[in-house]
């Protein structure tokens, strides 16, 4: 449900802190349309604002965080198009965290898909009001006037600027939304066009404010030494030594909270100083002795082996079942079995978590690079025992997010220290802090067993997984994946196989688990995509042909009868069906652009993988060369069907970024734990892709479609790692069932 109304300038100011001088429209989206994958309660409301000022400037409030996806540009682009605004006179304003915006969380790749329709309607309503105002002014018929490029033009050539009509338009009743025509796609001025991002110029001159760039007069710089293991406790520390160091103003212990981790501050000791360097240096003097607690036994390599043993040994809890898998496996001509492992990963956004807090006059102001301003507001308010309305969150630019910055723990730290000192405090995480105290992307073990008949057709698919769940940070002891997590590819496999059974095993969490760009699709698509390739080779078929044949006939998938509640990223299957045609479409369209099937030089191979995630369909093909133990990815190609695309350039950019993100994790991504502590700490031992590892050719293609807009930030990632593993097999005959691949090859 969505509604649009006009509001007074006074109310607008109160809601947004922005003053307007003309017409203000507010759009609200309510109910299940917002129920997202992770965090949006059913029935919540989202309000959006557009104002037309007397000087003709159109202001559009961006309620989403900009972390590199271009969303601060794409959403306003939609409004501006419908309203026929001149883009050069559109100003984009970052919204504060405010309950009146409704959910502002930027995750789950859902910004455009959730707001496309309402953004268009807002634009259309603004345009219609301005047209009506002009018709009244001229005593003309409404059918004789039309908006074009920031003016209302009369048939006879008279014209008025939007600005000249803004005040009149504000007084008029809103047009009947049901009667309001929306543009046809051929008339789009901005939708589907490559509009440069609004922050482009500033990003190229350094004239930007990220979380780390916030400067408040009198502010202290804090650096915190946190517990090295989950739930560790400070026994003692050398407060005086740190206090004596130059520039240090205070040393404060932060008390940790019992499980579940939620978004609480971790136990630690903060050093507050007049500048970053003094805080960092003095922190080395703290000499903390820790009670390491029960999680100090966690060794990730051993743990993954245990999970692997568990999934290959015996049945788990059935998540989805069709036919009689055991009987079919008994009859199969050929059986293929494999176990795949995926490690923990850290987000490592280029800007680490940073938050600044200032308590004054009974309120708490936060400035943070956050993906979730309202979660921040709620969590800070709850921690400080303040009313939510007394907490204001200013969202800065984000130097990357990838899901890490949807956890407000770092803002909580800043707020606690600001309260304690009575001064503004900025908490900056070092890279070591970021990597060692992440909400880690979970590790996972999966076992697959497939049966082929005499024609090499798949007749049975058995899969088992064990993955410490994200749920564990909200529910102490949670150790099974829920429906929403299994819906990320493991449970929703699209294959036309007569017999299948999918099972889950328990996996206890020993670290804080969080969501990272494409979340559980990363390990699950690695398993599924690799196993499909193994089956294809066992069947003696070209992997591309085997994918197409196994996905089978065009149809829309249903899951209920097989006992699985497919959550479909929070959207209904009626609105966003799982269409096998589109999955096959990306595979064929992608391989048609390649010399697929042609012979390659010795040591080279092509690999393919496809997946649907965040409602979009993606195929990735890579070409690798393996020579003298050295793996080189030579080409990466990606085809994405994300429905309607608002800003193709930004979608290509997201896909390019996803290829590199996937490349990083496939080649080098791993966080290990020894005695409960992460082994890695910075880019020397947690490497991410550098320019010299990026293939000379990274090509991305968007499927032309007018289906509803679906996610683009995340879906490119999952197929990358399996496509590389499959290419390695094609090149060498060596099957890699675990990433990162630098365990086996030099990269």
């Amino acid at each position, binding site marked *: 449900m969505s509604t649009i109304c006009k509001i007074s300038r006074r109310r607008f100011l109160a809601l947004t802190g922005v003053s307007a001088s003309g017409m203000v429209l507010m759009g609200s989206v309510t109910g299940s349309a917002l129920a997202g994958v992770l965090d949006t309660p059913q029935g919540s409301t989202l309000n959006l604002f557009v104002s037309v000022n007397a000087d003709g400037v159109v202001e559009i409030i961006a309620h989403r965080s900009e*972390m590199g*996806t271009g969303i601060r540009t794409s959403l306003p682009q939609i409004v501006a198009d419908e309203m026929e605004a001149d883009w050069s006179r559109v100003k984009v304003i970052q919204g504060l965290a405010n309950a009146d915006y409704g959910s502002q969380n930027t995750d789950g790749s859902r910004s455009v898909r959730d707001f496309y329709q309402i953004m268009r309607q807002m634009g259309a309503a603004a345009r219609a009001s301005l047209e009506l105002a002009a018709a009244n002014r001229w005593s003309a018929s409404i059918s004789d006037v039309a908006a074009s490029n920031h003016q209302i033009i009369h048939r006879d050539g008279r014209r008025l600027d939007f600005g000249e009509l803004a005040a009149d338009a504000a007084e008029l009743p809103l047009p009947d939304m049901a009667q309001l025509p929306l543009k046809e796609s051929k008339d789009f001025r901005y939708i589907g066009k490559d509009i*440069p991002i609004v922050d482009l110029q500033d990003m190229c001159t350094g004239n930007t404010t*990220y979380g780390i760039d916030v400067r408040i007069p009198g502010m202290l710089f804090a650096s915190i030494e946190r517990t090295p293991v989950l739930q560790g406790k400070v026994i003692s520390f050398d407060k005086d030594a740190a206090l004596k160091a130059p520039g240090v103003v205070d040393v404060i212990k932060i008390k940790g909270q019992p499980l579940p981790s939620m978004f609480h501050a971790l136990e630690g000791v903060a050093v507050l100083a007049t500048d970053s360097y003094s805080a960092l240096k003095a922190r080395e003097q703290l000499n903390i002795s820790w009670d390491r607690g029960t999680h100090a036994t966690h060794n990730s390599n051993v743990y993954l082996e245990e999970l692997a043993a568990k999934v290959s040994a015996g049945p788990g809890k059935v998540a989805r079942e069709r036919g009689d898998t055991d009987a079919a496996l008994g009859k199969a001509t050929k059986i293929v079995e494999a176990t795949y492992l995926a490690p923990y990963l850290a987000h490592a956004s280029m*800007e680490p978590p940073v938050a600044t807090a200032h308590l004054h006059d009974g309120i708490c102001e936060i400035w943070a690079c956050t993906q979730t301003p309202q979660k921040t507001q709620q969590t800070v308010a709850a921690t400080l025992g303040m009313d939510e309305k007394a907490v204001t969150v200013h969202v800065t630019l984000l130097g990357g997010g990838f899901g890490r910055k949807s956890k407000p723990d770092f803002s909580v730290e800043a707020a606690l220290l600001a309260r304690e000192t009575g001064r503004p405090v900025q908490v900056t995480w070092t890279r070591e802090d970021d990597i060692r105290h992440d909400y880690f992307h979970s590790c996972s073990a999966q076992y697959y067993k497939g049966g082929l008949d005499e024609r090499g057709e798949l007749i049975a698919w058995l899969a088992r997984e064990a993955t410490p769940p994200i749920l564990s940070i909200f529910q102490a002891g949670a150790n099974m994946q829920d429906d929403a997590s299994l819906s990320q590819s493991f449970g929703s496999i699209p294959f036309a196989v007569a017999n299948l059974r999918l099972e889950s095993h328990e996996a206890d969490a020993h670290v804080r688990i969080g969501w990272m760009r494409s979340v559980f699709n990363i390990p699950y698509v690695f398993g599924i995509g690799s196993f499909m390739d193994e089956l294809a080779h066992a069947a003696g078929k070209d992997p591309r042909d085997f994918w197409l044949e196994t996905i089978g006939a065009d149809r829309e998938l249903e899951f209920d009868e097989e006992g699985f509640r497919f959550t479909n990223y929070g959207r209904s299957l009626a609105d966003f069906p799982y269409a096998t045609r589109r999955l096959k479409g990306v595979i064929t369209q992608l391989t048609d652009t390649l010399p697929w099937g042609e012979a390659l030089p010795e040591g080279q191979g092509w690999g393919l993988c496809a997946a649907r995630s965040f409602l979009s369909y993606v195929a990735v093909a890579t070409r690798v060369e393996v020579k003298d133990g050295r793996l080189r990815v030579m080409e990466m190609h990606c085809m994405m069907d994300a429905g309607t695309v608002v800003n193709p350039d930004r979608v290509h*950019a997201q896909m390019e970024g996803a290829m590199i*993100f996937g490349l990083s994790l496939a080649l080098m991504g791993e966080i290990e734990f020894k005695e409960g502590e992460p082994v890695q700490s910075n880019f020397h031992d947690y490497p991410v892709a550098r320019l010299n590892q990026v293939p000379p050719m990274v090509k991305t293609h968007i499927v032309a479609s007018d289906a509803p807009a679906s996610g683009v930030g995340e879906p490119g990632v999952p197929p990358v790692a399996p496509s590389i593993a499959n290419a390695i097999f094609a090149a060498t005959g060596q099957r890699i069932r675990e990433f990162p691949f630098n365990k086996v090859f030099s990269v």
Partner: protein
Amino acid sequence: MKITINGKNQELDIAPEVPLLWALRDHLQLTGTKFGCGKGLCGACTVHLNGTPVRSCQTPVSAAAGKEVLTIEGLSVDASHPVQVAWKEHNVPQCGYCQSGQIMSAVALLERTPTPSDVEIDSAMSGNICRCGTYTRIRTAIKQASGQAGEEQA
């Protein structure tokens, strides 16, 4: 301590071992230069010292005494440097955070090597991490800024 920063003489009264990065960011309010790793591993903090690119997180401010420092803020106020122009042309930035460092490294490369080969670009730029993965556009933009536009990479 006297340092020339972006053509302006600055007097700094801080300990000589303070990294230039923090001197710029905390003492001179020049926040365009970014912190990414603090260990010389990511290039986000790249500035020029007498024309040579350095990692300011690894450069004590004393090493800059009496020298000229150029930061992103001093490159141009209006993004008119050819590298910035190429960056805009190809919409290189995603989150933008690494881009000050990328641009400073690219400018230094082109001053040394006006028409770099693919290999030269890769080796000069591999100290700069972009977690958003804007690398292919960085390559293309450098090609354009060096007048080699339109040449397909091998």
